[in-house]
């Protein structure tokens, strides 16, 4: 290189560095003030503190146990029409059930009712979900705990909702007895079409987290835990059917898992996000699963953690989003990016998935965890929200990754996404779970976000001037698991999927929030239930919450 050029280039380099150059800005269609944290104001005070780590055998395993996070579950626990919140604590920090006071006082404040509800638990809980497991119409509760099967921690729990504001521990003798840590995911569906919700649990077993020969911080063992499928036999009794159902192959380093009918045959298939190795898709053939990742184009190898499922564009094909680690400094993760698996059906009926995340601009959300498709701005286009963090582990290894924020991508007219900014939803912190739920019943989904070490966040949705329709499927029993709801209004059409599972360590409320934009009425409302039957409910006036079951609307 000629010396003059060297001089110019050196000077230019220094000048650019000094000026903080080479930063690209992206266009944004941010909605100002969309999100604001009202957790403390509403009495939802809970710190996801670290607990003791009795399972840890070395510093790395302690780091993982402290930092994988603790989830939350949301449901109308007391049948009063408002949504209550269960927050999970690490060992030494008990779980807390917060009752929403909206029905009682007209104000959506939260009051701790843990003791009164009989849900005292010594913590160490990772995931939980409310669901009607015994068919009595009330949401029962599963709490997944880290447990070594002997002394450390405590067994996972099944609680029956007694209908009087209290729960009874029905775990002993129920047959539900998963052992292991770290709990990576929890999903439910009626996998065998017997009308009851079955349970699948996963474990992140730290199998590939380091090489002890090369790294002083590497593990010196492996966490116990095998993914397990429990068939619901009724009356809160369960049977481990993992092997006979063909799910014996999913073991190591499993995170979020979802049941959904990816193949469109009316049976819930199973997707498992895996850390360090290829994700897995199991086809459900009448109650027996078969690993079929490759033939559907599934098999992303990365650090897949959180999952969200929807039907983008309402084409009848499910689409799936998986969060990952994207480190600008390439110090953490595989760098393979988040995936947005878009389903397509070929002429012979074969369903295949193609990753469209990069083209859609949603492949990079830092160290991503929980995620959800929901219509935050109620414009009739599904938005995508992703929370992130792993700060203690990242430490100084990658300052830019350490300091990232949650990301909101707003849905566009063309079924695409555009990054939002400066809207209050770009939350800094160390987040894990995100659950959309309308805590104040204004029709706009708010966001519950758990954090590691920091306080739980309740982002109130400040959308105004738009119409909406909330569809509650929680009273539809097993038929709600994987149900697709389509709403059309003012020429726009959106399909959402109800799942017991998804995001990360999340117990979803089984309510779907539809924005109608400027339309006061939804001119189309239909539900495709878990078994494939369809309820065509015609038009529906907006700005209301409706409870839908296969028997109709209430």
């Amino acid at each position, binding site marked *: 290189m000629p010396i003059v050029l060297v*001089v110019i280039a050196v000077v230019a*380099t220094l000048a650019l560095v000094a000026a903080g150059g080479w930063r690209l800005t992206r266009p944004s269609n941010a909605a100002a003030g969309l999100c604001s944290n009202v957790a403390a104001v509403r009495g939802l005070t809970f710190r996801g503190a670290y607990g003791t780590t009795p399972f840890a055998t070395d510093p790395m395993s302690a780091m993982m146990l402290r930092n994988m996070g603790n989830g939350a579950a949301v449901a109308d626990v007391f049948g009063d029409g408002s949504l209550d919140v269960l927050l999970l604590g*690490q060992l030494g920090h008990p779980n807390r059930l917060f009752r929403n006071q909206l029905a009682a006082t007209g104000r959506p404040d939260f009051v701790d009712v843990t003791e009164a509800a009989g849900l005292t638990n010594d913590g160490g809980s990772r995931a939980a979900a409310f669901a009607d497991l015994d068919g009595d119409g009330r949401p029962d509760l599963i709490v997944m705990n880290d447990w070594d099967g002997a002394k450390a921690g405590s067994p996972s729990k099944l609680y029956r909702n007694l209908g009087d504001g209290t729960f009874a521990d029905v775990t002993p003798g129920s047959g539900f007895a998963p052992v292991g840590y770290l709990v990576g995911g929890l999903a439910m569906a009626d996998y065998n079409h017997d009308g009851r919700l079955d349970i699948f649990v996963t474990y992140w077993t730290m199998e590939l987290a380091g090489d002890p020969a090369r790294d002083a*911080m590497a593990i010196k063992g492996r966490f116990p835990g095998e993914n397990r499928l429990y068939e619901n036999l009724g009356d809160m009794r369960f049977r481990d059917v993992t092997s006979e159902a063909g799910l014996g192959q999913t073991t190591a380093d499993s995170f979020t898992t979802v049941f959904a009918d990816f193949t469109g045959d009316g049976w819930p298939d199973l997707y498992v996000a895996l850390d360090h190795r290829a994700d897995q898709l199991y086809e459900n053939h009448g109650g027996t699963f078969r690993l079929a990742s490759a033939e559907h184009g599934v098999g992303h190898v990365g650090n897949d953690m959180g999952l969200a499922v929807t039907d983008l564009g309402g084409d009848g094909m499910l689409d799936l989003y998986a969060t990952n680690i994207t480190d600008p400094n390439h110090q953490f993760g595989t760098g393979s990016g988040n995936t947005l698996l878009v389903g397509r059906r070929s002429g012979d009926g074969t369903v295949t998935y193609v990753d469209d995340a990069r083209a859609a601009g949603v492949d990079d959300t830092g160290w991503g965890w929980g995620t959800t498709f929901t219509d935050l701005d109620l414009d009739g286009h599904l938005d995508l929200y992703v929370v992130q963090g792993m700060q203690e582990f990242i*430490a100084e290894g990658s300052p830019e990754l350490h300091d990232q924020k949650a990301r909101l991508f707003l849905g566009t007219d063309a079924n695409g996404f555009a990054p939002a900014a400066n809207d209050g939803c770009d939350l800094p912190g160390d987040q894990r779970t995100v659950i959309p739920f309308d805590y104040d019943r204004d029709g706009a989904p708010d966001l519950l976000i758990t954090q590691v070490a*920091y306080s739980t966040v309740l982002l109130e949705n400040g959308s105004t001037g738009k119409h909406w329709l909330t569809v509650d499927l929680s009273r539809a029993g097993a038929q709600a698991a994987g149900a697709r709801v389509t709403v059309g209004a003012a020429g726009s059409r959106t399909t959402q999927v109800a799942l017991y599972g998804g995001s990360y360590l999340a117990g979803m409320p089984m309510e779907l929030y539809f924005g109608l934009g400027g339309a006061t009425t939804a001119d189309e409302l239909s539900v495709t239930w878990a078994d494939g039957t369809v309820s065509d409910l015609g038009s529906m006036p907006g700005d209301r919450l409706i409870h839908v079951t296969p028997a109709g609307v209430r």
Partner: protein
Amino acid sequence: MTAAIGRRQAGLGLVVIVATGIALVATTVLVQAARAEAPAGWDPILASSPDAFRAAPRVELGSVEDRAELDEVVAHQARPPVTIERIAYWTAGPSPARWNEILLATVRKAKTNPVRVSRALALLNAAMYDAIIATCDTKIAYRRPSPAERDARIKELAPPDELSSHASVDAAVAAAAVSVLATIYPDHADEYARLADEVTEVRLTVGTHTRSDLDAGTEIGRQIGALAVERAKADGADAVWTGTIPTGDGLWVPAKPFKDDQPTEPLAGTWRPWLMPSGSSVRPGPPPAYKSPEWQAEADTVVRVDEALTDDQTRIARFWADGAGTDTPPGHWMRIAIELARRDHLGMAPMARVLAHLALAQADAFIACWDAKYTYWSGRPIGLIPGFASTIITPNFPSYISGHSTLSGASSVVLAAFFPADADSLRAQAEEAAVSRLYGGIHWPSDNDVGLRVGQQIGVIAVARAGHDGALH
């Protein structure tokens, strides 16, 4: 707090007040000295005198060899063997900052414990400081114009050395640094050697030195590096602990996840210090007796703070955590020092002087702190408060006194002397680092309070050394 501790702290407080006064008086001159570029006659740390390694030029000006060397510079400028980014990297500021950053990169990768990091930083910065002083002596003895001044074909693309191009100060710094770093991290020796070679190639390319100027610098640096290595071999850090962990009420017990591991560096209090006579020179009195009213009050404080911990306090606890895989506390303060030095555009010698005195104080602060830790073997909150869980990971060594606090007390006093306008901010940072350990649930208040004061005491000793290191002539 017991009366004994009260008296001890009062005594420490008096020492600190008096010594801080001395430090403040010294401050003005330290700053003035920091602005002087040429470290002529400064008092070296490892070498016996500034002229111990004076190196005569090997090549005579105007000789055939000299012309060949100038041709080599011309060839480098025509076809640079190094990238623009690497030229900018090595010429954008004094190279001692780079070698500290290189060491810290290895520290993060190797997950070196903070005590060992402070030792490495002291050896590195002492060697680089001496290399700069020795090179200055040679420059004054053998003044040589730079290649660009002697050959019209050559362009000067970076500032030349002060006084003389013989011998290259960057080459001397690089050689001294590589000697130290390769001894501590032999697995990375090739990487360090490659970086030193890169310094040579960059200096040839920017036209400030001939190869013999660089070779002479390298030779000076190597000899001083050998002194540092010799010291490292005899400072006691290789000794192997064969003791046992004492047991008894209130004493430290290994906590998971470190249950099967030995405590960290039980012998570090016996390592050879740089500034103090021995690790026990500033040993504080004992901590509050277990289960005494004073101890109970501290335990209540730990629990109360943990239960009411705010997000801001969590953030502070994490910010200063500096655990395994990070720069660790000494590296954290070294980065603060480098940032201040760069902000004030300190030159090579003044920057190295700041970093060396900081590093010596840090090493001694940890030696004194570890002496106290393994004298008293006091328990941590996680071990003595039933059911308590700390917000940050409890380290694997006894509690009293806090390493962060001792280190931060020393670091803040040293840096305040060199950057007096920042004294308040530096003190506030040290106090935040200290209280961060209470927020994190891993230390009792007295661990932090006494640690800060012991550290400040050591900082004052370092400032006193800087006050008569010859830089004030």
